[in-house]
């Protein structure tokens, strides 16, 4: 009998496929994973502490820097929390604009997630480039409404910072008309590709009960077949007015998580279409005092961000600063089960599983 010894390899914090400065300490037996320990904190900036000394408006740019691939969603969740805390009603038009940009953001974020996942499977950047092409169009639209391409700082307490310019709606129309065609192209490139199927089907299976028990959320939870989408389960803003489906996977493997994201992009296009058609005229920002002093109290507001349940827990104390500012980061909590998913699989699968969970390190570490 050949005597073998396990080998320990550190993946990251500098590694091409850890999606940032994430580190996994993996023990292998040959190429098979026998142990895995995720190590966090390389991007910890103490945003929660920092925001306790900022005014409520000043925090908005900081939320941009949590999940930088979905800044709009972060803005959305945060301003919702503050509005709930201070009891502010926001105008209809602002609600619709928020939904439009949040769904566009979901498409943009899922494009990166899927493209990055395929890169992790070993595709030589081609799907990634195709998906970046479409994301770039969304960024153009965002630049048009708020002047930035990554850190939008678009939403304000009581509405959004600016109304959309007149050229926005035609450009958006063009985008939603051609986007389904591009999604079909991705399907043609990947959905039937034997290598993609062989690499992702049955790999990293997350059973539904375990996914719920481990507080997984977003596409990770839905990939396991749990029909739980906060837009539908606990509708916030005006999501109860739109028709859309919640795609769910069957087995909870990496393929299902990838598939759920592709389908969610189609649904997001659908929501944007409806919101565009119903967009009312009017104000985009409610009257809010320049220095907001929400009353004593606490609030938990959550939305369905592209990565899952993004919640903000705020404690107000009549001062212009929140007493406690806490982020329920879906990326971090989805990683709870990384070890369970990876054990028994091969080196290459660990990368694919991590890619299919889709983390953003700025949100994991905060």
């Amino acid at each position: 009998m050949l005597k073998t010894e396990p080998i320990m390899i550190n993946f990251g914090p500098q590694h091409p496929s850890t999606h940032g400065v994430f580190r996994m300490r993996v023990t292998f037996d040959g190429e098979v994973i026998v142990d895995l320990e995720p190590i966090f904190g390389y991007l910890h900036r103490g945003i929660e502490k920092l925001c306790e000394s900022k005014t409520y408006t000043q925090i908005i740019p900081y939320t941009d820097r949590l999940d930088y691939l979905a800044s709009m969603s972060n803005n959305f969740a945060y301003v919702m929390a503050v509005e709930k805390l201070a009891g502010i009603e926001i105008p209809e038009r602002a609600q619709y604009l928020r939904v439009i940009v949040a769904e566009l953001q979901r498409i943009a974020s899922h494009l990166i997630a899927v493209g990055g996942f395929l890169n992790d499977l070993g595709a030589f950047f081609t799907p990634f480039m195709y998906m970046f092409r479409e994301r770039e169009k969304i960024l153009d639209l965002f630049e048009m409404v708020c002047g930035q391409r990554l850190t939008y700082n678009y939403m304000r307490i009581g509405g959004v910072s600016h109304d959309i310019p007149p050229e926005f709606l035609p450009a958006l129309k063009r985008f939603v008309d051609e986007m389904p065609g591009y999604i079909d192209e991705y399907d043609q490139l990947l959905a039937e590709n034997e290598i993609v199927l062989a690499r992702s089907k049955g790999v990293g299976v997350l059973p539904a009960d375990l996914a719920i028990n481990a507080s997984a959320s977003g596409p990770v939870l839905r990939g396991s077949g749990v029909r739980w989408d906060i837009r539908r389960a606990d509708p916030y803003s005006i999501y109860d007015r739109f028709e859309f489906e919640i795609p769910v996977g069957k087995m909870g493997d990496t393929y299902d998580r990838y598939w759920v994201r592709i389908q969610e992009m189609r649904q997001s296009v659908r929501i944007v279409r409806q919101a565009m058609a119903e967009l009312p005229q009017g104000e985009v920002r409610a009257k809010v005092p320049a220095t907001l002093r929400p009353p004593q109290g606490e609030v938990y507001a959550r939305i369905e961000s592209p990565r899952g349940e993004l919640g903000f827990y705020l404690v107000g104390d009549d001062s212009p600063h929140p007493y406690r500012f806490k982020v329920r980061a879906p990326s971090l909590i989805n990683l709870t089960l990384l070890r369970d998913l990876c054990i028994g699989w091969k080196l290459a699968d660990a990368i694919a599983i991590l890619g299919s969970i889709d983390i953003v390190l700025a949100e994991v570490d905060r």
Partner: protein
Amino acid sequence: MGVLEQFQHWLLGYWPSWAAYLVPAIVAFLVLSSFILLVVMAFIYIERRGVGRFQVRLGPNRAGPLGILQPVADAIKVLVKEDIIPSRGDRRIHWLAPIIAFMPALAIFAVIPFGPRAIFTDINIGILYIIAISSLGVIGVFMAGWASGNKYSLVSALRTVAQLISYEIPLMLSIAGVLIISGSLSMVSIVEAQSIPFILLQPLGFLIFFVAATAELNRTPFDLLEAESEIVAGYHTEYSGMKFSLFYLAEYTHAFAISAIVATLFLSGWKGPFLPPALWLMIKVFLVFIVLFWARSTLPRLRVDQLMGFAWKGLFPLALLNLFITAAEAIIWPGFPWQLLILNLLIAALLIVLWSGLFRVAGERVSFHRYGRGIAKGMALTFRHLFRRPITVQYPEQRLTPAPRFRGNLLVWDEERCNGCRACARACPVSIIDIETKKGDKGLIVETLEIDFGRCLFCGLCVEACPVAALFMSRDYEQASYFRESLVVKKEQFIAAEKRPSAYAYPDLEAEMPPQTLLAPPKEKG
């Protein structure tokens, strides 16, 4: 008789025998290596440009016209880099490895015929020589992986050995079919025997050879040893400078050699109408290479167990069957009439369909029973993208116009209007705006204004806070400096700066701004 022997015979008439044997070898080496270097540069150029087009990018086009000097620039860059030997590595083996990896690839060219008589040495066991030599490269790769003292490299080295040894067997067996038809081991006679290109007589053999050769070359979807997303760069993670460039060169030389072997064995080598033989061979070589990187830009990579399974369960039995069928045909129809072509195509199709049903990974859940249809679809899609307009632009010559309300990198400050109320400084989330004022005749006068743009978030809250419209975002988007201090902009600089305000927070300005450049939908030519 090859060119090398003819040269030796001619020299033997004038020079002592040792010189007559040594000099031609050196000359041949120099000629060959400079020729290979040229071809490799062409390979690198067309691969980088080609992959760029597959990915709707422009590809490298800065160095020389159409970027034709890009490989030269790459080479110079790599060669002048610092050579690093890991302190825990094995110094001598680290040095030797790239040389051992490179030499076999070079040595293959001794028996590649570029024309009826344009071959260095027409040894009568040419094929055997190629098989023997080309497997030696793996030793260099393994040495590199071992000597680097890096775990990624070690994993890569072990994968290399497993992969190359496994794929060597179907590779050889698929060649055997060709040998049966041509009845010779000499490369020249094999080409001469191809009145019909063997790709038609041996379709299955060609496929097996091509797939196995892709694996030998470590190209996608078999590029497990340098799988970037898993093991960083595999065996050459710890290599830099000259030694890295030798590995790089070896890889492309090997690609050239394999393309040339495919062209010689299956695509009737130098044969072809009108054009000179050497040119025909090169055309075929480039075609094969284009297919190689076309696959690279489309496909993801297999996992290590799937890779081995594919070799042993898929290619190996198929190659054996192919050999058996070819041998049977040689007995029944010794002349190999062209009608066999149809029969062989049918057999190949049947066997592939039968065999693809065998592949099941992850239990019974996935099968390859689609006979590669999905892969073909993907390849068709990337091919179509080849004709789409690239979406990247030629920066800095071609600049995009940002949106009217773009939040650019500096602020535009209007001294006349500013009343020194410090609303911007209070609104700033990172407190980088420093204003000091003194009492003047009509309200406050700004004495100092300093903004540290090294820390600016460009959130625009200061502009929104300004009650007198004295502060604007700018529409510039280029900001670079060697020193952090120079990012602290002072009052005088604000006054002197070229003012290009953005319409952010001032919607009235929007009408007169140039429209934003939007990413145009790609146009299809065909």
